[in-house]
């Protein structure tokens, strides 16, 4: 029985874009977080008005220093309260959870296209680092609403070519990530993506026949497969009783495997 739950201590926390925070925390639990695309489930404080844990993706890990970095957007009460937590205070973390991106599907020398939208960008960072370390050529396409919402552009640039799009054109290429892929004529051996459903749907339509892996988001209860809050239908049985759980079978699925 593996111990998957523990307290991490916050070592830094800062705002890095509009509503976007970067938090780094430390503890032995981190050593198990080796698979990009996995997530952790966080109990932000002990006050019971905020009952459930909150799922956040692993954005970066330093296993030697046992530090975990996450990026999050302040959406509601939970992320707001997380943003108010002070350095040195603790958070209760369950994880790593779920199935991450299959790094090994891309061979050294091949090209991986990493496509992220908004708060779907964070898990791609750890993924990109691992792919690069493996000798894979990484290209990033990162979509945001506007200039103010852009983050980690520099960090991704250090790992490989990075195209940033904004919906309003205030920074980078105007439009959606799919526009950029088209305009820039980007080709790849493997596609890895995380972002809003609409984006994932669009990518599925275009690249259904490609080697592609998509990370999904769904409201979660337990995060470990017991509550059935996070299920989705299978593409080959879209109305039936068969299903996958985003928390344990995902969040990363092969393109076309599940109904978006």
């Amino acid at each position, binding site marked *: 029985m*593996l111990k998957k739950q523990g307290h991490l201590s916050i070592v830094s926390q800062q705002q890095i874009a509009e509503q976007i925070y970067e938090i780094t925390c430390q503890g032995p639990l981190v050593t198990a977080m080796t698979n990009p695309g996995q997530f952790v489930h966080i109990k932000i404080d002990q006050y019971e008005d905020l009952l459930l844990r909150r799922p956040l993706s692993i954005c970066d890990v330093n296993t030697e220093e046992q530090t975990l970095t996450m990026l999050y957007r302040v959406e509601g009460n939970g992320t707001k309260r997380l943003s108010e937590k002070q350095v040195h205070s603790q958070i209760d973390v369950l994880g790593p959870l779920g199935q991450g991106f299959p790094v090994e599907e891309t061979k050294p020398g091949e090209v991986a296209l990493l496509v992220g939208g908004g708060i779907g960008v964070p898990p791609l960072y750890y993924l990109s680092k691992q792919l690069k370390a493996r000798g894979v050529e990484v290209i990033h396409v990162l979509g945001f609403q506007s200039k103010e919402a852009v983050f980690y552009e520099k960090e991704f640039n250090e790992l490989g070519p990075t195209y940033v799009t904004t919906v309003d054109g205030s920074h980078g290429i105007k439009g959606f990530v799919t526009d950029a892929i088209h305009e820039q004529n980007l080709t790849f051996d493997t596609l890895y993506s995380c972002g809003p459903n609409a984006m994932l749907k669009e990518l599925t339509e275009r690249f259904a026949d490609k080697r592609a892996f998509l990370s999904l988001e769904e409201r979660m209860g337990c995060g470990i497969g*017991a509550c059935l809050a996070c299920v989705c239908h299978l593409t080959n049985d879209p109305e039936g009783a068969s299903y996958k759980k985003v928390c344990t079978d995902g969040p990363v699925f092969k393109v076309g495997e599940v109904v978006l």
Partner: protein
Amino acid sequence: MSRLAIELPGLKMKNPIMPASGCFGFGKEYANFYDLSELGAIAVKATTVEPRYGNPTPRLAETKAGLLNAIGLQNPGLDKVCNEELPWLEKFDVPILANVAGSEMEDYIQVAERVSKNKNVTALELNISCPNVKKGGIAFGTVPEVAAELTREVKRASSVPIYVKLSPNVADIVSMAKAVEQAGADGLSMINTLLGMRIDLKTRKPILANQAGGLSGPAIKPVAIRMIHQVSQAVDIPIIGMGGITTVDDVIEFFLAGASAVAIGTQNFVDPYACPNLIEQLPKKLDEMGVDHVSELVGGSWKELCNVR
């Protein structure tokens, strides 16, 4: 016998704590966290005749100190439950309380008959109160005569004792309890979730795809305590109490109200170790209270003699 061990119809429990139905699947996930034999019992997820996918997502919404769910009785169906899920649980030394659901009386009877034959299923829990199924289900839970008839038929079909799980969404919980007791229920489970809703300010629509859902968690605890306090004085069958338990003090409060055992639902999601933690803390709490055996507390809030200090 240990100071935590209790014996209820069909349930010989090492301790009075079990996970609540629907909050623990069929145990597999939590078996990654601890040895399920530590538990007093396990109430498994509702089983229906056919496999069910349940409701569309989103199925969960958080409220202040509460959780709304509209899972919709998703389950692998009778065949798979009997052939795979329940046999898998046999390796643990723990009695199983199998939760039985359906849309028609016949469904309940069919599930009860077959599930109760599984060798580790030592009792059934009749889910007459799930707010998340549209047909039939809800009426069973709010009309005493209908609940009684269902109880009678299921009791006849079952080879093990049956607990009827009551809905709190009624004006008179005591009548419901008495009706199913008279119809042969061996025990009661209470409470199921309260019907609630949350609306998203951005989309201006209910958050749950199903619109309404069942409210669980600390928010509903006072309703559960009140109902158990009322019902336990009016019936002679034992009550498995649940609704918002998060701490060992909550466990004690349910016993004092009149429960003979307790179930932990939502808190499993918050803390996967919730059940074993409570089991560990219970003896210390009994010491603090000067109580030898947990059963001494049952109904302590209304039984005169129990109110030592």
